[in-house]
């Protein structure tokens, strides 16, 4: 290193780095000029970038990062993009809200837009609970079948989406099943008999004696909502107990849990979160999943 005169490799005539590893010396060839140029240019570009664009976090005198003199901000840009998107959708939204939900589908352009909008809005907002494609999950009704708690016509679905179920909205769909066990309306024996009754109502084999014992209990406590024939009542969102479809499970234990202390699940009112056009598109989309009425 301290050698003042660099060693020249006798074969190539190029100076060496002066270092030696296991008898191998490295030639100190100059870098290609174009490479060197690009190297310096990259450094200059980096400096220019620091000045122009947001780059350095937490420098004194700045709240957060440096902002750069171009004032580029992804937040602002996204907001601008979103407002452009919104403006582009205004015409469609206006037409969609002005058109009766049932006649949207006879407008080819509108129906195509609704299919796309409904699909993406369902994925963003509904699929988390109701499953992709409306397959449903325990506690979250399946939307792709023809069994509806609150009605499967277009306007029923739209109302459910807009105001929610047991949600914080004046027009929300409300009804609560009492906690027959927890609040001691019924005795444990009565509940055991009712479980057998519900099992028999859905066409399965049950303890005949228990079913006979349970009938008056059912008529007194349950029939006002679920009906004397146990077919349910959509105006109260009371499920049909005979169709073999269970929101919280249909085995004796699950039925017993429901009678003892029902969950009374909540669906938010989407009218406050989504614009009317999206709600309408969602209603039409859900209606088209397979079992719309």
């Amino acid at each position: 290193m301290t050698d003042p005169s660099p060693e020249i490799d006798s074969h190539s005539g190029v100076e060496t780095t002066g270092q030696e590893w296991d008898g191998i010396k490295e030639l100190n060839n100059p870098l290609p000029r174009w490479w060197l140029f690009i190297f310096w240019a990259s450094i200059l570009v980096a400096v220019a970038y620091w000045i122009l664009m947001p780059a350095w976090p937490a420098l004194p005198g700045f709240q957060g990062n440096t902002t750069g003199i171009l004032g580029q901000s992804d937040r602002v840009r996204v907001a601008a993009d979103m407002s452009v998107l919104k403006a582009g959708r205004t015409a469609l939204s206006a037409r969609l809200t002005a058109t009766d939900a049932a006649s949207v589908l006879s407008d080819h352009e509108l129906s195509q837009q609704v299919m796309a909008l409904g699909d993406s809005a369902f994925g963003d907002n509904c699929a988390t609970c109701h499953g992709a494609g409306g397959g449903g999950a325990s506690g979250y009704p399946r939307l792709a079948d023809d069994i509806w708690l609150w009605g499967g016509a277009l306007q029923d679905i739209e109302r459910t989406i807009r105001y929610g179920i047991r949600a914080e909205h004046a027009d929300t769909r409300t009804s609560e099943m009492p906690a027959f066990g927890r609040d001691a309306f019924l005795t444990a024996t009565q509940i055991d008999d009712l479980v057998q009754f519900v099992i028999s109502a859905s066409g399965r084999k049950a303890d005949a004696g228990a079913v006979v014992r349970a009938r008056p209990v059912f008529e007194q406590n349950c029939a006002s909502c679920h009906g004397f024939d146990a077919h349910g009542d959509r105006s109260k969102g009371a499920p049909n107990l005979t169709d073999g479809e269970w929101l919280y499970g249909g085995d004796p234990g699950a039925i017993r849990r429901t009678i003892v202390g029902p969950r009374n699940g909540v669906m938010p009112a989407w009218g406050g979160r989504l614009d009317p056009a999206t709600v309408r598109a969602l209603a039409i989309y859900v209606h088209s999943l397979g079992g719309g009425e």
Partner: protein
Amino acid sequence: MTLYARRKQIYPQLVSGRFRTIKWAVLAATLGVYYLLPFLRWDRGPDAPDQAVLADFAGGRFYIFGLEIWPQEVFYITGLLILAAVGLFLVTALFGRVWCGYLCPQTIWTDLFIVVERLFEGDRNARIRRDKAPWSFDKVWRKIAKHAVWLLVSFLTGGAFILYWHDARDLTQTYFSGHAPMTAYVFAALLTATTYALAGTMREQLCTYMCPWPRIQAALVDRNTVAVTYRSDRGEPRGAHKKGESWVGRGDCIDCKQCVVVCPMGIDIRNGPQLECIQCSLCIDACNAVMKKVGRPKGLIAYDTDDNVVRRSMKQRPAPFQPFRSRTVLYAVVFALTGGLMAFGLATRSDLDLSVSKDRALPYLELASGDVRNVYTIKVANKQRAVRDLALKVEGIVGAQIEIVGESDAAAPGHITPAPDGVDRYRLLVTVPAASLGATSAPISILLFDGGRPAASATTQFQGPEH
């Protein structure tokens, strides 16, 4: 061996001859096509661009004259790339680096830039003299003018490139008023910079150091490949020759170095085949002119095979050109197969695509009536520029009822009217009486009819409860 060679400036001398003429013609033709093609018009009706060749990314279409390629048909572009690659293999196996010598953009634009250079700074000797001379007004203005014209040509090159991605007439107007898309400015600037750097200053270094093609080509040629060759058997021993001296006992090469001074790569072809040689055949022109002058036959440097060089050195007769060799036949067969497949695909290309995907959230739905329902999402790509009225039918299960969501024209049930030049989406509800469902799952066909004629079809499964 040195790892880094300082660049020696190359001053190729102007040469005239058969191959130079061919190269001028190729240069004029390729540059002409490149600069003018975007301005060629092609009528596709009122709702479509009228540019003959256009890659419309925003609209998702690739227009080549009468052909409209959709994004899902991008395999045609892949096929085109395969054709280009195998075609290049074939030509290289037959005639060496024809691509490098005549057609490569690097060669074409370098040639064009040398024309400009020659215009301002003169031919080889004048350029060398001026570069060695101290700076003067004459030298300065010539250099400035040369670089200015180079930049102009570079800008036209980058500018023409962006015309392939956006309507050319529209872009030539909006570009200079500052209203063109940002990508147009970025790519024009990028291509201007690369053209200026690659054809103006880097030149042969691109071929020698950066381009992978010279390395690949070494594996593509064999001893029967025709290539630019110095016939050493005839040329050696070389040496200066005075007029009237005997040619007996010496070679035809008079060591005039004309082949070296015209070479754009700065090499000596007499050293045999070299990685740097792009086989532009300008040395053939140069040598032929010299041979004519000294009264010896042409072709001391000529297109020839390695095999013949060996034969000649062993005093054997040169063999005739063999175009049919295992590798050339293989390349030709692959080329013909790919081309044939593409031609077949294009000829039978449908202007209607139907794709069906079954809803998976619920495999089947048993309605209260006992019927079984399956739901499908169907996508119909209408590649015509008119609304179509298509009848949709489902075959495979007796008594299947259909309902189409997304098109409920009461007047014509079972009909869809996909919009022109787009993809429409519908949901198809197929309901089947439980009795006619024999097995758990049955194949069904979804058919589209245009005016009674089958237009498109797709098969899928209909699922029912387990028995």
